[in-house]
C-alpha cells in the first residue's frame, strides 16, 4: 500500500466523514463547456478491503445509477456542475459536489459504519437488517414525533420506563443512574435521577443512535453499568452548497405538531443547524382525556467543523427546552388520596375537552451543551484528541400549592458540569490498536432559592477524575477487546436535617474510588455463524439522590430517603450473542446476559407507613442488597430481499433480590413482537412503497409482593402498529409521505413500565401524518 494512501486511510479512520475521492484526470483542461456533454465513470470500493460495492445507488443530479458487479457506474450527458449522492446499505449516505471540466473517472471509497471506539457488534449485510444494532438517520427521522427514549427502544435490549409523557431508557432491565447517554462523545450530565425525569436530549440531533454494552463502555465514566446509548453526529459532507432535510408530523392523538429542520453546508468550514419544535396537547385514552399531559419542546443545535489531513476540530452548541404537564389526576397527597386515585375508574380532575394548556403539576427544563473537540493526526500510529464540554441544566417543577404559590416552582435546580478528555489512540502494530484517556470533571448543583420548600436533593459539588485504557486485537475472523478504568470522585454536599427544633444545615463529604475491567471476543465462524461474548466487572458510585434525597416525589406518593452510608455497587456481567445465517434470506440470533450486582442500590419499602400531620405515607429508603438480573432475546428474521420481510422477536428478563428473596420491581415484562413488511419499487429507484405491520404481545408480570408496589401489575395486553410510507421524487426533490397508526385497534390497556398505570390507561389510537423533504 503506498504511504500516501496509508496516511489518508488513517485520517479517515478517525474522521467519520469516511469518504475519499480520488480524481484521475484523463486529459489536460479543455476549459468549461456550457453544453451538457461530459461523461463520468465511477468505481465504488469498500474502504477497508477495497472490495467492489455492487448495488450502490449513485444519484447524479437526482438521476439514479446502479453499480455493476465490479462496483462501476457510468453516466453521460452531464453538465459541468454535478451533485452526487452515494447510497450503499451499511454505509452512511455521502453527498459530493463536483465541477467537471472534461470526461472524468473517479474512485469512491465508502467506509462501513463504525464507532469511534469500535464496539464489537454482530453485523449483517444490510443496514436495514434486523435486529437493528444501530438506528440510522432515516429511521430516526421516520420516528420524529417520538422522544429520545422511545426512538432508542427500537434497538434490541432497550425498553422504556415512562411516567406519562416522560420517557427514559431501560437497558437490559436497568434504568436511571445505571444507563448512560453519550452525546458529542460525553455523558449527558443532567437531572436524571428521578423516575419522572426524562433525558434532556433531542433525538433528532443524532445522525445515528447506537447501544454499547461491551468493553467499550469503560471509555466513559463508569456510572452506566448496564449500557450506554450513543448519539453520533456524522461529519458534515464536503458539498459546499446548502443541503438539508425538513420533516413534519401531525399526530391525531394530542393534535401534535412535530417539525424539524436540518441544514448542512460544507466547504472550508462545515456548518450544520438543527431546529426542532414540538407542540402536543392533552393525550387521550380510548375512554377519556389525560388532562394536563401536554408537551412543548423547542431545541436548537449548531455545529461547525473543519477537517484536514493533520487536524480536525468541531464546535457544537445545543439547547433543549421543554415544558411538560403531568397528569392532573396523579397529583395526590397521602395514602388515603392514593388509594382513592388508584380506585377511580376515570382519573380525578379529568376534563371533557381537549386543551394545549400546561398547568401545574408541570416541569420546565432547559439543557445547554457546549462541546469543543480537536484531533491531531500525528502520524500513522498516533492520534491525539481533546474534548472540553460544558453542560448547564435548569429544572423547575411546579405543584398545586396554597397561597398563590402554584406559579412558584416547588423544585428549582441549576446544575453545571464541566468535563475534559485527553485521549491518545495508538496503533501498536498492524492488528493491535490501543487507546488511553484521562477525564477530569467538575459538577456543581444548586437549589435556586425561593421555592419555599426544603430541597429534595442537597446542593453539592463533585470533583471527578477517570483514566482508562483499551486494547483491540483484530485478526481476520476474530476480534478481541479489553479495557480497564479507574474512577475517583469527591462529593461535598450541604443537606438539611429535619428536626423538632427546625431544619439544620449539615455538610457532608464523600470520596469514592472505583476500578473496572472488561474483555470481549467476537469470532466469525465458517457457515455464517457469528459468536460474541463479553465479561465486564464495573463499579458504580452511588448517585446523589441515592445518598441524600429526602421528600416526596412528583407524581409518586411516597417519601424517599437517601442513605449516606451507601457503598459502591459492584457489577459482574457476562453476555453472549450468537447469530447464524441459515440461508441467504433466513437468520436467527440469540442474545443472553447474566448480571450479578453486589451492593445493588434500590428503594426498599419500609414495613411501617410514615405518619405525618398530612396523614400516612409509604416510606422508601435507599438500601443495598445483592441482586441478579438476567435476560434473553431471540430473533428470527426472514428477508426475501425483494418484497417481503418477516421477523419475530421474543424477549424475557428477570431480576431477583438475593437477600430479601423477592423479585426486583420495574424489570421489563416478557414480550413477543413481530414485523411484517412489504416493500415495492414502483418506479425503478425513484419511488418505493413500504408497508409495515408490527404486532406486540406483552405478558403480565407476576411474583411482585404487595408491599413492593402501590398496585399489582396490570394484565397482559396485545397492541399493533401499522405504517405506510411512500418514498418518491417530487419537484426534483426526494420526499417521503407517510401515515402510521399506533395502537391500531384503539385498545384500552395499562403498561407495567408506565408509572401512570396507577391512575390512568395508556393512550389510544394515534394516527401520524408525515412528510419528509430532502433538498
Amino acid at each position: 500500500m503506498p504511504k500516501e494512501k496509508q496516511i489518508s486511510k488513517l485520517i479517515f479512520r478517525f474522521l467519520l466523514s469516511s469518504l475519499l475521492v480520488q480524481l484521475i484526470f484523463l486529459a489536460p483542461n479543455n476549459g468549461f463547456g456550457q453544453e451538457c456533454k461530459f461523461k463520468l465513470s465511477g468505481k465504488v470500493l469498500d474502504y477497508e478491503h477495497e472490495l467492489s460495492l455492487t448495488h450502490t445507488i449513485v444519484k447524479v443530479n437526482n438521476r439514479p445509477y446502479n453499480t455493476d458487479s465490479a462496483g462501476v457506474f457510468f453516466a453521460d450527458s452531464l453538465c459541468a456542475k454535478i451533485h452526487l449522492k452515494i447510497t450503499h446499505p451499511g454505509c452512511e449516505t455521502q453527498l459530493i459536489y463536483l465541477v467537471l471540466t472534461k470526461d472524468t473517472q473517479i474512485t469512491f471509497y465508502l467506509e462501513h459504519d463504525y464507532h469511534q471506539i469500535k464496539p464489537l457488534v454482530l453485523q449483517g449485510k444490510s443496514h436495514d437488517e434486523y435486529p437493528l444494532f444501530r438506528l440510522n438517520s432515516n429511521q430516526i427521522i421516520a420516528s420524529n414525533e417520538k422522544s429520545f427514549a422511545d426512538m432508542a427502544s427500537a434497538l434490541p435490549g432497550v425498553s422504556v420506563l415512562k411516567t406519562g409523557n416522560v420517557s427514559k431508557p431501560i437497558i437490559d432491565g436497568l434504568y436511571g443512574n445505571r444507563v448512560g447517554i453519550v452525546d458529542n462523545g460525553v455523558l449527558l450530565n443532567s437531572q436524571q435521577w428521578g423516575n419522572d425525569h426524562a433525558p434532556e436530549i433531542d433525538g433528532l440531533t443524532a445522525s445515528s443512535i447506537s447501544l454499547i454494552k461491551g468493553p467499550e463502555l469503560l471509555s466513559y465514566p463508569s456510572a452506566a453499568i448496564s449500557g450506554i446509548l450513543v448519539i453520533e453526529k456524522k461529519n458534515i459532507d464536503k458539498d459546499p452548497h446548502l443541503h438539508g432535510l425538513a420533516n413534519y408530523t401531525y399526530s391525531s392523538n394530542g393534535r401534535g405538531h412535530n417539525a424539524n429542520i436540518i441544514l448542512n453546508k460544507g466547504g472550508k468550514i462545515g456548518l450544520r443547524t438543527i431546529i426542532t419544535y414540538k407542540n402536543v396537547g392533552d393525550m387521550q385514552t380510548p375512554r377519556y382525556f389525560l388532562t394536563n399531559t401536554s408537551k412543548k419542546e423547542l431545541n436548537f443545535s449548531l455545529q461547525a467543523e473543519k477537517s484536514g489531513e493533520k487536524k480536525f476540530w468541531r464546535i457544537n452548541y445545543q439547547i433543549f427546552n421543554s415544558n411538560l404537564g403531568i397528569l392532573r389526576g396523579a397529583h395526590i397527597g397521602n395514602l388515603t388520596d392514593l388509594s382513592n386515585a388508584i380506585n377511580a375508574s376515570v382519573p380525578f380532575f379529568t376534563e371533557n375537552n381537549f386543551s394545549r394548556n400546561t398547568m401545574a403539576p408541570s416541569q420546565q427544563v432547559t439543557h445547554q451543551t457546549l462541546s469543543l473537540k480537536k484531533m491531531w493526526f500525528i502520524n500513522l500510529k498516533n492520534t491525539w484528541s481533546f474534548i472540553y464540554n460544558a453542560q448547564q441544566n435548569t429544572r423547575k417543577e411546579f405543584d398545586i400549592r396554597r397561597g398563590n404559590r402554584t406559579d412558584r416552582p416547588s423544585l428549582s435546580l441549576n446544575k453545571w458540569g464541566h468535563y475534559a478528555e485527553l485521549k491518545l489512540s495508538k496503533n501498536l502494530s498492524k492488528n493491535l490498536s490501543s487507546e488511553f484517556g484521562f477525564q477530569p470533571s467538575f459538577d456543581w448543583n444548586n437549589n435556586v432559592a425561593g421555592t419555599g420548600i426544603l430541597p429534595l436533593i442537597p446542593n453539592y459539588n463533585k470533583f471527578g477524575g477517570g483514566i482508562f485504557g483499551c486494547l483491540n486485537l483484530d485478526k481476520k475472523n476474530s476480534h478481541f477487546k479489553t479495557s480497564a478504568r479507574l474512577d475517583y470522585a469527591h462529593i461535598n454536599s450541604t443537606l438539611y436535617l429535619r428536626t423538632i427544633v427546625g431544619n439544620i444545615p449539615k455538610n457532608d463529604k464523600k470520596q469514592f474510588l472505583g476500578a473496572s475491567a472488561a474483555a470481549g471476543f467476537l469470532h466469525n465462524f465458517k457457515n455464517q455463524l457469528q459468536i460474541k461474548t463479553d465479561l465486564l466487572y464495573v463499579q458504580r458510585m452511588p448517585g446523589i439522590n441515592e445518598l441524600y434525597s429526602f421528600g416526596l416525589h412528583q407524581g409518586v406518593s411516597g417519601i424517599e430517603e437517601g442513605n449516606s452510608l451507601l457503598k459502591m455497587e459492584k457489577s459482574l456481567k457476562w453476555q453472549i450473542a450468537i447469530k447464524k445465517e441459515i440461508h441467504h434470506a433466513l437468520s436467527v440470533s440469540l442474545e443472553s446476559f447474566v448480571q450479578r450486582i453486589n451492593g445493588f442500590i434500590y428503594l426498599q419499602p419500609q414495613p411501617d407507613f410514615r405518619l405525618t400531620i398530612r396523614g400516612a405515607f409509604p416510606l422508601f429508603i435507599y438500601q443495598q442488597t445483592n441482586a441478579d438480573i438476567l435476560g434473553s432475546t431471540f430473533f428470527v428474521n426472514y428477508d426475501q430481499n425483494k418484497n417481503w420481510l418477516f421477523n419475530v422477536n421474543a424477549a424475557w428478563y428477570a431480576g431477583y433480590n438475593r437477600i430479601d428473596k423477592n423479585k426486583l420491581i420495574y424489570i421489563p415484562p416478557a414480550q413477543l413482537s413481530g414485523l411484517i413488511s412489504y416493500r415495492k419499487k414502483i418506479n425503478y429507484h425513484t419511488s418505493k412503497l413500504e408497508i409495515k405491520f408490527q404486532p406486540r404481545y406483552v405478558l403480565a408480570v407476576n411474583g411482585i409482593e404487595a408491599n413492593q408496589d402501590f398496585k399489582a401489575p396490570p394484565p397482559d395486553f396485545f397492541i399493533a402498529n401499522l405504517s405506510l410510507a411512500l418514498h418518491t421524487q417530487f419537484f426534483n426533490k426526494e420526499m417521503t409521505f407517510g401515515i402510521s397508526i399506533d395502537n391500531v385497534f384503539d385498545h384500552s390497556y395499562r403498561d407495567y413500565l408506565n408509572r401512570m398505570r396507577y391512575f390512568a390507561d395508556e393512550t389510544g389510537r394515534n394516527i401520524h401524518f408525515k412528510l419528509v423533504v430532502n433538498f
Partner: protein
Amino acid sequence: MKIKLKSIIFAIALPALLIQSCKKDDHDHEEELITTLKVTLTPVGGGSAKFFIYKDLDGDGANVASIVTDSLDSNKIYNLVLEFINEAENPAKDITAEIRNEGKDHQVFYQLSNSNLGTIKYTDADGDGRPLGLSAEFTASKSVKGSLKITLRHEPNKAGNNVANGDITNAKGETDIEVDFPIFIK
C-alpha cells in the same frame, strides 16, 4: 488554528468556572408547611374552653407527632374553631387566614368514629356559600370513647354529591392535613 481554538476554549471555560462560586441560600425554611393543628372547643352557654392540639414539628421527618386532647361533657354543644400554624418558622406563622382566603379551594371534613359521639355541623361558608369548615358546631351526645378525624382537602370537588354535608366520599382533591384525635366524652 491551534492557538485560536485554545483561546476560544479559555474564553468560554474560564468565566464559566468563575461564575460558580458556591453561595448559601435560604432553603432552611418551608413557608407552606403546617406543623400544628389547634382545635378550640368552647361550650355554648359558658364554661372553660377545651383544646386539642396535633403537633408535628419535623414535617416529613421521622419524629413522632405530639397529641394533646381533653375530655368533653355529654349533651353539650361546643363551638369548634380550627387554627393551622407553622411553628417551624420563627416567629410561628398562622396559616389559617391563607386557607380562609382560598376558601373555594379548601374544605375541612370531620369524621367521628362512632355516631354515639355526637354530630358536627359546619358554621361557616366560602365565597360561593359552600361550607369551608374552619368553624363548626360539635354536639356531644353520649358518654363514649372514640376518635375524631379532621381532614383538610385542597381543590376538592365541592359540588360533589353530599360533599356540602361533610361527606368526604366524593370530595376528591388532595389531602393537606389528616389527623386523628382520640376523643372521650364524659
